[in-house]
């Protein structure tokens, strides 16, 4: 390659002149060169400014009207957050939040999340926020007036130091001025100053913590009479401790990450997965847990206790999967299938109360499979035959009386075995299959624990779950189920096997054509009728199932869009270097497909989060139902008719959450953007 000599001095792009206020106005408000467009744009600008001023005026007039009872929000905070959660058990909530917060900051540390934000930009943002608060504060329609027009620029009577409005106005003005000078100073610095972006949330949390100990909030004294009181130490203390623990956890996380980065990430992923069942089944569950029953020392014998079930299937299934995953070999496959038949037969004998013929049938099928495996010569075909046989077996098992949990296990096992020829063969593939099996068995047992079908345990959702606690549980559980389900559906719908395509398309179209509320009714009232008699799941579980059914269809369609955007050459290249179908899909196609649909997926997640409020229709007390119904209509007479206040607060509340989700997603998108070009 011949070398080109670079020019001695690179020419710089001309610096953009800093525009004065008039030029800025012309460019941004009245953009145009001749009078026609200028007049038109000026009209638009003025009209728009009027609308904004009026909106701000309405908001201030509303917020500071004398008859507002914001105590309805502050006083009912516990009701909104956890409804009737027993006061003595609130520690469970704090521990749940603590686990979550620690995992979040640990992940931030482990994935080196962050980046820098320029001090000048930050100061400018703060300045803009203060100016907005100040402007909103001084816009006013006058007491009681709510007509559209020019709102008053109303500075409160300076003598009225008792009005909180005066203080807010003064403080925001001072804040805006301070931020302005700070921004100017930062601008004059030669080199741009930056701070880690994590400083922003930490500062925010520190401010909130400070406020917890200093701010006095309104509380009702008698009818419509308010005083103020400190936030109770029972609230302030745990939040302060949480704040401390979170910051500590961050530094510990960074330290651990420096020591063993890969190990830490693996531990974290497992911790995230485990945190969900732990929080739901152990921490937030009704305290009356009969551990003796769970462990099998109580009334239920060990083999039919939850732990017993888990152990039987965890170990047995692992062994079977390991053996079936061996490189195909006639003897081994035949033996495995035979063993399976015998196991199934024995199980139906031991746990089912069915007739003898079912046991005989099982054993006969097992033997037939052994014979089939020996007569078919191609090893691959043999494994397939075994898998198909097992799938058939699983179908038959549904008709043999045995506890529902065992049937579920058998079906899951048969499905895992069906995939053995694809994943198996190599040591690594078999190990992965076994590793996948263990959480599956754990999840099945957990589902039955929650459903309380086989033991005396009850998950008393009606008294224990409500308010925001319920909202977040529904949202996270629904998403945890619908994201993987949607992924599988999307793959099925784009698969080359017509039967998968047909089933997935049918499912998606059916689910999407029926309103979510109908699915909720289905979950709450009708699902039981579709399950075998004797199997009953808690209402919350059924509702989560309904939410997952509904969301998974939308998630599937989003992901399908991403899959279709991937060039066919990617798949061909992956296959050409020797990756298997599953590897090509999971290592090459899906990572790219999911990246392209993150914006759409985040949209789905936000919608799913907001849609949890629909459960109010089937009588579950989510945070919105409490705000809309319980507080203004049913509780303390002090709060009768405070619907608008509550709705205002709820709007803000939901906004904070959805906005956070969408910002985080945006940052994530940017952080992975590099690989996308």
């Amino acid at each position, binding site marked *: 390659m011949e070398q080109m000599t670079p020019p001695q001095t690179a020419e710089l792009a001309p610096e953009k002149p800093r525009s004065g206020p008039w030029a800025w106005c012309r460019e941004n408000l009245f953009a145009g060169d001749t009078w026609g467009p200028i007049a038109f744009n000026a009209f638009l600008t003025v009209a728009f400014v009027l609308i904004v001023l009026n909106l701000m005026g309405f908001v201030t007039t509303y917020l500071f009207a004398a008859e507002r009872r914001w105590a309805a929000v502050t006083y009912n905070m516990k009701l909104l957050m956890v409804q009737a959660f027993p006061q003595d058990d609130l520690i469970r909530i704090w521990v749940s939040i603590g686990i979550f917060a620690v995992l979040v900051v640990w992940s931030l540390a482990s994935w080196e999340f962050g980046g820098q934000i320029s001090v000048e930009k930050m100061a400018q943002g703060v300045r803009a926020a203060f100016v907005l608060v100040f402007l909103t504060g001084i816009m006013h329609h006058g007491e009681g007036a709510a007509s559209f027009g020019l709102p008053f620029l109303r500075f409160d009577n300076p003598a009225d130091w008792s009005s909180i409005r005066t203080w807010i106005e003064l403080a925001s003005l001072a804040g805006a001025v301070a931020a302005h000078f700070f921004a100017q100073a930062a601008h004059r610095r030669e080199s741009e100053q930056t701070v880690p972006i994590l400083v922003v949330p930490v500062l925010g949390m520190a401010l909130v913590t400070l406020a917890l100990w200093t701010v006095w909030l309104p509380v009702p004294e008698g009818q419509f009479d308010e005083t103020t009181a400190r936030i109770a130490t029972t609230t302030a203390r745990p939040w302060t401790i949480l704040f401390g623990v979170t910051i500590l956890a961050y530094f510990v996380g960074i330290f651990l990450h420096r020591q063993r980065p890969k190990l830490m990430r693996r531990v974290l992923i497992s911790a995230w997965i485990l945190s969900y069942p732990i929080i739901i089944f152990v921490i937030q569950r009704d305290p009356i847990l009969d551990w003796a029953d769970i462990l099998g020392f109580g009334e239920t014998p060990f083999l039919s206790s939850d732990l017993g079930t888990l152990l039987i299937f965890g170990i047995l299934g692992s062994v079977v999967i390991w053996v079936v995953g061996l490189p195909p070999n006639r003897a081994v496959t035949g033996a495995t299938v035979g063993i399976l038949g015998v196991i199934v037969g024995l199980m139906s004998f031991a746990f089912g109360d069915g007739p003898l013929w079912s046991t005989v049938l099982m054993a006969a099928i097992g033997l037939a499979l052994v014979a089939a495996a020996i007569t078919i010569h*191609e090893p*691959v075909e043999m494994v397939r035959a075994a898998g198909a046989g097992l799938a058939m077996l699983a179908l038959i098992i549904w008709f043999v009386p045995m506890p529902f949990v065992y049937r579920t296990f058998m079906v899951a096992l048969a499905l895992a075995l069906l995939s053995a020829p694809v994943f198996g063969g*190599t*040591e*690594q593939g078999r190990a992965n299959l076994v590793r996948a099996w263990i959480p599956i068995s754990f999840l099945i047992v957990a589902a039955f624990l929650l459903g309380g079908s086989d033991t005396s345990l009850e998950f008393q959702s009606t008294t224990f779950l409500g308010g925001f606690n319920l909202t977040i549980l529904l949202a996270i559980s629904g998403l945890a189920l619908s994201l993987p389900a949607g992924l599988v559906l999307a793959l099925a719908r784009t698969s080359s096997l017509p039967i998968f395509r047909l089933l997935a398309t049918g499912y998606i179209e059916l689910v999407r054509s029926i309103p979510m509320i109908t699915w909720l009714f289905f979950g709450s009232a009708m699902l039981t009728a579709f399950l075998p008699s004797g199997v009953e799941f808690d209402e919350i579980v059924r509702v989560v199932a309904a939410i997952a059914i509904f969301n998974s269809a939308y998630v599937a369609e989003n992901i399908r869009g991403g899959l279709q955007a991937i*060039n066919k*050459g*990617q798949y*061909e*290249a*992956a*296959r*050409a*270097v*020797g*990756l*298997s179908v599953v*590897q090509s899909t999971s*290592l*090459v196609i899906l*990572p*790219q497909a999911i*990246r392209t649909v993150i914006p759409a997926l985040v949209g789905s997640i936000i919608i799913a989060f907001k849609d949890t409020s629909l459960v109010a229709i089937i009588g579950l007390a989510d945070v919105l139902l409490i705000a809309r119904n319980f507080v203004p209509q049913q509780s303390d007479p002090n709060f009768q008719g405070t619907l608008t206040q509550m709705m205002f607060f709820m709007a803000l509340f939901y906004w904070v959450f959805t906005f956070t989700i969408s910002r985080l997603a945006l940052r994530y998108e940017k952080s*992975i953007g*590099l*690989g*996308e*070009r």
Partner: protein
Amino acid sequence: MAAKQTGNGSTPAIVCEGVKKWFGDFQALSGVTTTIGWGEVVVVIGPSGSGKSTFIRCINRLESHQAGRIVVDGREMTNDLRNIDAIRRDVGMVFQQFNLFPHLTVMENITLAPIWVRNRTRTDAESQARQLLERVGIPEQADKYPGQLSGGQQQRVAIARSLAMNPRIMLFDEPTSALDPEMIKEVLDVMKELAESGMTMIVVTHEMGFAREVAHRVLFFDYGTVVEEGTPEHFFTNPQHDRTKLFLSQIL
């Protein structure tokens, strides 16, 4: 310039007998018969749409043929998945559009298959990848993403990615057709070096200079079949067939 017979003894690298392939009613391959020995470099030329791509894609089963036999390294292509996987591990392929994995770095692109298919350790695979990047002349680009490289560099990464599986046969489908002229040479140089090292190669290309200099044999495709084949000297100086003459007159 006779083909070297290096391979593992008796079986030739690739044997095709009467390979036919239809897309719907359209016949893309109408009976291709040829045998390729170990270490042989075969250049495939022919007009657009004559079935060159389809032919070499049949050899690693990106397309399946409907009649005839394809035997690669003694293993016949059937629907048996395990056979196909085994063959694919032995046959590397380089595409016109590079088809690098855009979400992975150059290093990850190269080490992906060795780690997942050959069960190599990461350190092991990475040290091999560095050697390969050295070999294709871009050792300094290991940590970049494909989108940050020039076309020629991307194609050289694609070659390194294929080589990482230690294939015994390499297929090239118009590897330089999507490249700007000044980048063609850097890719051809890598391919030349590969041919000199004794790799068995089938190259679909319009680079006649490359064919003259490197090929042991040239196949001329038209209407889904081999119309004429021979050594480059024979082919470029003394073509027999009218269609070959017409084609050569158009492109030379």
